[in-house]
């Protein structure tokens, strides 16, 4: 079970599974330009500080 903050902040970018974990783990995704703000919010809200934005 994850905190669920990232997929609440960026629902068009991140999804969750049946246990409440974000579906992308230990992976890298391309963030479309219009989703960069949401991605930054997701990274800044993660209590585990587990999301890193790669410029």
């Amino acid at each position, binding site marked *: 079970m994850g*905190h669920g903050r990232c997929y609440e902040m960026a629902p068009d970018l991140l999804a969750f599974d049946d246990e*409440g974990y974000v579906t992308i783990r230990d992976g890298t995704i391309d963030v479309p330009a219009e989703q960069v703000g949401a991605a930054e919010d997701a990274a800044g809200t993660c209590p585990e500080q587990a999301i890193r934005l790669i410029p």
Partner: protein
Amino acid sequence: VTETASHHETEERDLGGCPVMHQDFAPQQAAGCHWAMADDLRETSPVFFNTFAQGYWVFTRHDAVRDIYKTPELFSSESITPWEPDPIYRFVPTQIDAPDHIKYRRIVNPWFSPRAIDAAEPRMRALCRRLAEDVAATGSCDFVTGFALRFPTEAFLSMAGIDPADADLFVPWVEDFFGGFSGDPAGLEPMAQALAGIREYWVAALAERRADPQPREGDLASHLLHASFDDRPLTDAELLDMLTVLVLAGLDTTRGTLGYLFRHLATHADDRRRLIAEPELIPFAVEEALRLYTIVFGDGRKVTRDAEFHGVQLKQGDMVYALVSGANRDPRAYEHAGEFVVDRKRNHHMGFANGPHRCLGAHLARRELQLAVEEWLRVIPDFHVATDEELSERGGGAMMTLTRLPLAWDVTS
């Protein structure tokens, strides 16, 4: 019964210059005192040694608290109360370390997942609306007993498939349990009796379900009876230890946060009106309440090996206390850390803990808090605290919670 003398080594122990304090966190205080104490400790020193009980380390700032949560191999959950390294209860999975911890979590995670909460939301909203409408007509209530205790209790029991009428049994058990959990010696005997009562309840409930060939729909105890751990069924001890902690955690915590959140709304008309005008901000206000009004004063762990950590030398078997309430108000981690910023974004608070033991019920709790604000403000948009007396809160040894919160509002017929 044999008893060994408790082990006092703090007097001769070299604490490496760490400041020493002697503080019992169990007693009831004036409301808000615990956060003032956490702020004061955090700004005085990043770490203390508290000589209370057998003695334990207190880490006060965001970085150390996060590191304790993120280093479970050094900080065991075998005990989560630093004043009691060997408690009489065993919560599963709360007090289980790797590698078994995640196996237990996998069994209960789906039950409290966002998907499960989404499915339960219409039922929870209807319950919340009924309770708010019932109380709205009266013009006043003690918010703690009239709403904050009733809504999460009935919502949780309904999620777990327990008869809501059994709330009358569980509520006093939960009160008595946390009286002893806090470290108050007078609370130990009532705590033991409450644990016995809860166990007897579940022993009977499990016996009634054991012969079922299939799990009962929406029934948590029945689901656990049919669950597997390493390809074997859960033992009776495991079943009881899991069901007990679920009830204790599910019934007590959301009540505490609801009290502080609604005290804030009662005393901050600007925030209240903003949430009515912009209900999309309610989830942000809930997160801010979880950060600024953190009911978990601190979280305990047991040190697994000698190690240096944030400037002090820990020994195997030492207890540490991660001052979560101090960390969540740490100006090193948050701008305007001491203020309630109703629309705060990027709020990475640790109100639901952090690391592998992060709160199982977080999604349920946050949805309950959001629904409570939505449904209450819909029928009671303006309300105030209806007493000039100082409010008080339960001691930080357990989760803090307002002992009462008298609210009043105008009733138009």
